């Protein structure tokens, strides 16, 4: 039995869906961030899979850009979480309702 690219793509869609559901279900902001990382990783897996299927290196270069965006997002996001936590003493998304109408 040979593993074709479709197996990887099915796995990537499973990972992406798990990440999306986790983002909607969990309320701890840190865990929500981890779910975003899961989704980004699923996308990276599809990039590399397509790169392998089409024999094109560009997919792997795009993974680098995704990685950079993820790193920047984590740096700014965690700084925001720390700033919020200093003020509110909790890291739950539902407590951040100052803009609620």
């Amino acid at each position, binding site marked *: 039995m*040979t*593993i074709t*690219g479709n197996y*990887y*793509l099915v*796995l990537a*869609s*499973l*990972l*992406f*869906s*798990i*990440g*999306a*559901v*986790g983002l*909607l*279900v*969990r309320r*701890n902001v*840190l*865990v929500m961030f*981890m779910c975003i*990382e899961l989704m980004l*990783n699923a996308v990276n*897996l599809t990039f*590399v*899979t*397509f*790169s392998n299927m*089409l*024999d*094109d*290196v*560009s997919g*792997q*270069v795009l*993974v*680098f*850009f995704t*990685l*950079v*965006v*993820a*790193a*920047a997002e*984590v740096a*700014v996001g*965690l*700084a*925001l*979480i*720390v*700033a*919020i936590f200093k*003020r509110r003493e*909790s*890291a*739950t998304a*539902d407590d951040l309702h100052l803009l609620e109408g």
Partner: protein
Amino acid sequence: MTAVLFFVFAALALAGALGVVLSRNPVYSALLLVVTLVSVAVFFLMQDAQLVAAVQIIVYASAIVVLFLFVIMLLGVDKAEAIIEPLPGQRVLAVVLGGILLAQLLFLGGRVWATGAPCAEDVCRPEAGGANVEAVARSMFTTYLWPFEITAALLAIAVVGGVVIAKRGGAVTGGEDEPLPEPEEGAIESESAT
């Protein structure tokens, strides 16, 4: 052999992802995230993307997860995530929507997995026969040179922004330039309660 490897690591990746979502303790979530990230790195290796696999381990599985763990330790682990849902039926709806998303992705994939033809050898892989690192580097520093430089600027901005946000956000400055003073918040809440 490859099939066994794939299914073992696919099971590990899915178990890790489910563990991230389901575990109550954020520390376990972060550690299970590492399982998924390393499994994905193995898939990269199986698909001849050695450089990306190494970067995945170095940047994701070590740097980003360590950053997560630092923040968890800094903030203290709040295990008691409230059971009460502010929006009734949110979790059920989320799972249903996730199932719909998965069905859509699989349906879309079942029709067209990959569009376009494999490109010519000398266009996508200049100097074919070189190692994967060489091919990626050649593509990155010729075709994608400008995006690459812009990501450097993005990273610098993100670092500076992170420092500024984390410094100003709390009681570190202690000056009058606090963006959201506490009394106003109470006033807003009492106003909305009336």
